[in-house]
C-alpha cells in the first residue's frame, strides 16, 4: 500500500514528546500502524529523547526509594481491561480496548460510530463510514480535524486518500470529499471544534448532523 499523505512534522514531534492530546494521539498512532516513514521518524525522535535523558544531571532519589520499589516487585500488574473491539480492522490495539458506541445514521449513505475516550480530551474521535459515490457535504472546520483512512478511499481537492493516508483539515481548508467506487470508505476521525457545513443542503442538514 502506498501512503501519500502524512501527519505534519510538528504533529509527529509532539507524538514523540508525548504532548498530543488523546484524540490526536489516536489518529497519529492509527496512521503509524502502517506508515514505516512516520514510525521511523518517531522512533528516531524517541532516540533523541533518549540522548536527552542520558545527558540530564541526576536528581537524588528519596532515601527509601529503591527499597520501596524492591518491595513491590512481586506484586502482580493490574489485569488487562475487558472487551476488544474488532468490528473494524486497522485500529491500534490500545484503541480497540476503548468503548465504542453504535453506528448512527448521519446522512444519506453515511454512518458514524463514536469512540469513548477514557480520559478528557478536547478532541472527539469517531469512525465514519460512507458508501461508494457518496459526495460528502462541502464543509470546513472551526478547528482541527484529523482523518486516517482505514479502508476504501476518498478524493477531494487535496488529492486521493487511500488506506493509511492521513488528512488534516482546519479552518483554512474547505473541501468536498467524494467516496471512490469499490468498497465502503471507513475512516478514523479526530475532530476538535465543530464541523461547518456550507451550501443550502448543508444548512438544511446541520440540525441532523450532531457534530
Amino acid at each position, binding site marked *: 500500500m502506498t501512503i501519500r499523505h502524512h501527519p505534519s*512534522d*510538528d504533529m509527529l*514531534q509532539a507524538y*514523540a*514528546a*508525548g*504532548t498530543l492530546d*488523546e484524540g490526536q494521539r489516536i489518529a497519529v*498512532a492509527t496512521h*503509524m*500502524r*502502517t*506508515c*514505516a*516513514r512516520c*514510525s*521511523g*521518524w*518517531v*522512533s*528516531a525522535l*524517541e*532516540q*533523541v*529523547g*533518549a*540522548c*536527552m*535523558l*542520558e*545527558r*540530564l*544531571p*541526576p*536528581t*537524588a*532519589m*528519596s*532515601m*527509601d*526509594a*529503591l*527499597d*520501596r*520499589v*524492591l518491595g*513491590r*516487585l512481586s*506484586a502482580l*500488574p*493490574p489485569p*488487562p*481491561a475487558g472487551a476488544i473491539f474488532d468490528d473494524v480492522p486497522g485500529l*491500534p*490495539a*490500545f484503541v480497540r*480496548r476503548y468503548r465504542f458506541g453504535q453506528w448512527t445514521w448521519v446522512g444519506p449513505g453515511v454512518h458514524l460510530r463514536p469512540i469513548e475516550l*477514557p*480520559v*478528557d480530551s478536547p478532541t472527539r474521535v469517531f469512525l465514519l463510514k460512507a458508501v461508494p459515490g457518496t459526495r460528502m457535504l462541502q464543509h470546513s472546520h472551526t478547528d482541527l480535524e484529523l482523518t486516517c483512512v482505514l479502508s476504501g478511499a476518498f478524493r477531494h481537492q487535496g488529492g486521493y486518500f487511500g488506506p493509511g493516508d492521513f488528512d488534516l483539515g482546519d479552518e483554512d481548508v474547505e473541501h468536498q470529499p467524494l467516496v471512490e467506487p469499490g468498497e465502503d470508505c471507513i475512516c478514523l476521525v479526530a475532530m476538535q471544534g465543530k464541523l461547518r457545513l456550507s451550501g443550502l443542503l448543508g444548512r438544511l442538514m446541520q440540525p441532523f448532523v450532531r457534530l
Partner: protein
Amino acid sequence: MSAMAVEPPSATDAESLSRLIAAVARQDRDAFAALFGYFAPRVKTFLIRSGVNESGADELAQETLLVVWRKAAQFDPVTTGATAWIFTIARNLRIDALRRERRAGTLDASFDLEAFADERPPPDNAIDAAQSQERLSAALAQLNEDQARVIELSFFEDKAHGEIARLLQIPLGTVKSRVRLAMSRLRSLLDEAR
C-alpha cells in the same frame, strides 16, 4: 542518596544497559538495582523539568523502573535502544500522570503500559537499533548548539516552552519556529545518511 550495592553502568555503554535489562527479565534483583541507580535519578530530573513536583517525580521515577521490571521480557535490544525504551516508558507515565493531575487524582499503581502500546511496521531498510543510534548521534553532532538544544528541550511539556525561551533568551514566539527548523534539519540529515 540511596545505598547502591551494584555500581551503576556508565552513560555511554548501551550494550551493558541492554544486558542489565535482559538480567532483569530473569528476575535478577541486583541488575534491577543497578538499572534503578542509573535511570531513576535521570528520569526524576526529566519529570521535574516537565513540571511535575519533586515528590511526584520521585514516585513516577519509581513507577517507571517498576514498569521496566514487569516489561523487561518484552524488551528487544535489536529493534530498540535500552535508554529509548526507558524514555518512552517515562514519557508515557508522564502523560498518564499529567492527565490524572488534571482530574485531581492521586498517583497509584494503576498505570497501564498497554494503553500506550502503538504498533509500528518494521523500518524501510533493515537496520538494527545500534546502527540507527549511531546514525542519529552523527546527525545530532552536525546540528549547531542552539538547534540541538531546542530539539532536546522540545521533549518537555508544552508549558516548558516559556522555559526554553528564557534559557535561550529568545522570544516565546520564536521557540516553535526554532524547533520546527531544527527538526527539519535533523530529518534531512537522517535522510541523507540512508
